[in-house]
């Protein structure tokens, strides 16, 4: 088979599975789940073939044409797409298998697995898309599947509210994305990623607004400030969904999209990248602070995801790096898009360890009979040893423990920050301290000490379908940072990763780890109440309030936007519907009423009208004029 038809197969597998489940198997949970898992396995096999055989290609076909404007569907499968495809396929398969165990007793698991399949279809579409329009279509489809899966337990009001919130907040970002695509087409005459890159290299100028509008899409999808509010609420969905969609793949699609349009940023004025960088930095710091004050195990991980996504966005925003290459012909300086390399590298390792942490939290929640409060857990180290070991690896990886995956990718970002902007470096390093702090807090409260509730007392280890993905992801979280193992396959991206020389960054990471993790280990006591809350109640309540951003949005929507909408509605009723539409109809109706009065049905009346008509006609023919 040609690579292009393999790519089509890649899209058809999950689409076929979703259609089959949605149309015929809505009540056959067991069969549906196996079909979905089979599709995910097929995706992983085909993706592995495409990625590791080094098949790289571009193919496109025209889909719609309106005059000069054509929308095409196509694939651009370069190293960047290959890396993303590998992540999506691998984490997707792990989550599918994990769901077999986690959702085993759910009455509507057919719908759940159908949703997973439609998500895989949409996500693969984003990964493979060769132009912005196609990407946008699948971008909306992942939004839809995210809505579907957050809404899985729709009988809970909180879940359906969260799903709506996620969908609506994403719409705000997507509106900017769409405007950006239109502006891009208007300015460059192209939406195809390769064409855009060619035009930019050919010297086309790009105003900062175009990449920034496109960035709006990433702000929504990757939950950056100020559109981050949906991601913590999205934790209402089943935990494997949080792992797949809201940690590893969909929310990372924003960063992936940024890397796809990197030529636009490179050609635009520096302000564009600076905006991106600051939004990422602020999100990273803000979310890390919020994570400290959360009690719900999934909420902690959600804010941690926000913070790490901020890290990636900041890395992208730091931009390219001047590097000196040494060769036989002498040494020369080149500009390397180190931001892309660092962001994608961190995206990769983050996908592994965050999926691991979320699936681990799923295992914990499952073990504790759907208890999610970390202060009601404790002592799970002995009850669930496998979950404990894998979760510990995840915590160590995200905290930047030396020689685990997160260590390398975070160092790459910190190194880049140190080269480009010392202030940003300081904030990011402080964020890393906070990350180590809240992750260790979570880990200590859940696994150490004595059980603090009935459900933690009776915790039980997970079954094999849930254990296997944890082990696989734990292995990846350990070895994912060694680009020497797999880097040659994705050379186009991973060769861009900046490498720290000397020991400065290593020392900094060690200090970060010791201060953050050590601080949390010493500070938190395994008790039913938050030590932080007891010692610093004022600061804690400030962090727990999340800076009142949700409240501000509520106020804006309820008090300002709603009133403005009512005002507009009033004008619509009075002016548009009342005066213009009903008014016009009334005038025409009056004419009709007059004309109807002539129609009496009496013959003699008609004869008079006829007579008047003849006289007028005669007068007209004779050349009379009205005075």
């Amino acid at each position, binding site marked *: 088979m040609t690579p292009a038809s393999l790519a089509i197969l890649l899209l058809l597998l999950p689409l076929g599975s979703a259609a089959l489940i949605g149309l015929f198997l809505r009540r056959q949970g067991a069969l549906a789940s196996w079909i979905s898992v089979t599709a995910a396995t097929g995706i992983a096999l085909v993706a592995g073939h495409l990625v590791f055989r080094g098949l790289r290609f571009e193919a496109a076909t025209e889909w719609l044409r309106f005059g000069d404007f054509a929308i095409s569907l196509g694939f651009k499968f370069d190293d960047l797409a290959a890396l993303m495809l590998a992540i999506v396929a691998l984490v997707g398969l792990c989550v599918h298998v994990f769901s077999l165990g986690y959702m085993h007793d759910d009455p509507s698991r057919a719908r759940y697995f159908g949703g997973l399949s439609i998500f895989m279809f949409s996500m693969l579409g984003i990964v493979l898309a060769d132009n912005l329009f196609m990407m946008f279509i699948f971008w909306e489809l992942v939004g839809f599947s995210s809505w579907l899966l957050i809404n899985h337990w729709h009988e809970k009001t909180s879940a359906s509210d969260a799903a709506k919130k996620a969908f609506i907040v994403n719409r705000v970002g997507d509106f900017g994305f769409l405007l950006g695509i239109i502006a891009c087409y208007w300015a460059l005459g192209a939406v195809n990623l390769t064409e855009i890159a060619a035009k930019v290299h050919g010297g086309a100028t790009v105003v900062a607004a175009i990449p920034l509008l496109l960035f709006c899409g990433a702000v929504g999808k990757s939950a950056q400030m100020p559109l981050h509010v949906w991601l913590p609420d999205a934790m209402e969905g089943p935990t494997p969904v949080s792992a797949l969609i809201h940690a590893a793949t969909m929310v990372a699609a924003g960063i992936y999209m940024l890397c796809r349009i990197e030529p636009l940023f490179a050609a635009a004025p520096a302000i564009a990248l600076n905006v991106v960088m600051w939004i990422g930095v602020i999100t990273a710091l803000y979310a890390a602070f919020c994570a400290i004050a959360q009690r719900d195990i999934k909420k902690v991980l959600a804010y941690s995801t926000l913070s790490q996504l901020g890290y990636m966005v900041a890395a992208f925003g730091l931009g390219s790096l001047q590097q000196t290459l040494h060769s036989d012909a002498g040494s020369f300086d080149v500009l390397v898009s180190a931001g892309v390399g660092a962001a994608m590298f961190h995206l990769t390792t983050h996908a592994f360890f965050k999926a691991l942490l979320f699936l681990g939290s799923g295992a914990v929640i499952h073990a504790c009979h759907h208890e999610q409060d970390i202060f009601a857990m404790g002592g799970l180290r002995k009850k669930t040893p496998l979950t404990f070991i894998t979760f510990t690896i995840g915590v160590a990886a995200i905290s930047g423990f030396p020689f685990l995956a997160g260590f390398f990718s975070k160092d790459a970002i910190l190194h880049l920050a140190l080269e480009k902007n010392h202030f940003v470096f300081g904030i990011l390093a402080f964020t890393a301290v906070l990350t180590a702090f809240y992750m260790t807090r979570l880990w200590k409260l859940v696994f150490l000490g004595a059980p603090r509730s009935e459900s933690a007392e009776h915790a039980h280890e997970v079954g094999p379908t849930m254990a296997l993905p944890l082990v696989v992801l734990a292995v990846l979280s350990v070895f994912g940072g060694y680009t020497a193992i797999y880097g040659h396959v994705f050379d186009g991206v991973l060769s861009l990763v900046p490498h720290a020389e000397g020991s400065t960054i290593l020392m900094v990471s060690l200090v970060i780890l010791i201060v953050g993790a050590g601080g949390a280990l010493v500070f938190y006591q395994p008790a039913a109440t938050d030590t932080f809350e007891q010692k610093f109640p004022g600061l804690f309540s400030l962090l727990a309030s999340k800076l009142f951003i949700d409240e501000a949005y509520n106020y804006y929507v309820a008090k300002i936007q709603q009133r403005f909408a009512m005002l507009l509605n009033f004008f619509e009723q009075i002016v548009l519907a009342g005066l213009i539409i009903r008014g016009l109809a009334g005038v025409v109706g009056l004419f009709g009423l007059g004309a*109807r*009065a002539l*129609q*009496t*049905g*009496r*013959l*003699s009346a008609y*004869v*008079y009208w006829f*007579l008047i008509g003849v006289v007028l006609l005669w007068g007209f023919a004779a050349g009379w004029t009205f005075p």
Partner: protein
Amino acid sequence: MIAGLNAYIALSALLFAIGFFGVLLRKNTLVIYMCLELMLVASTLALVAFSRFNGTMDGNVFVFFILTVAAAEVAVGLAIIVALFRRRQTVQVDELDSLKH
């Protein structure tokens, strides 16, 4: 005394006026119909008079056509009136007013 053209025209106009006012004022469909015929006859009278005094046949030719058309029209019109009477039991135009708004 031999009547001149003006006398014929005057008679024709008088007949036409009788027919016209009959159509306007009378209520019985048959009478209105006869008044219509009267107007046709008035115009044929004028045409015959013109033909006679101009010494050409043009007017006479018109008259033949008018008579032919009038005969056909009478046949159709009377049939309609008979059918109307069978259906509505009246030929008074005041009562035939169902075709209104």
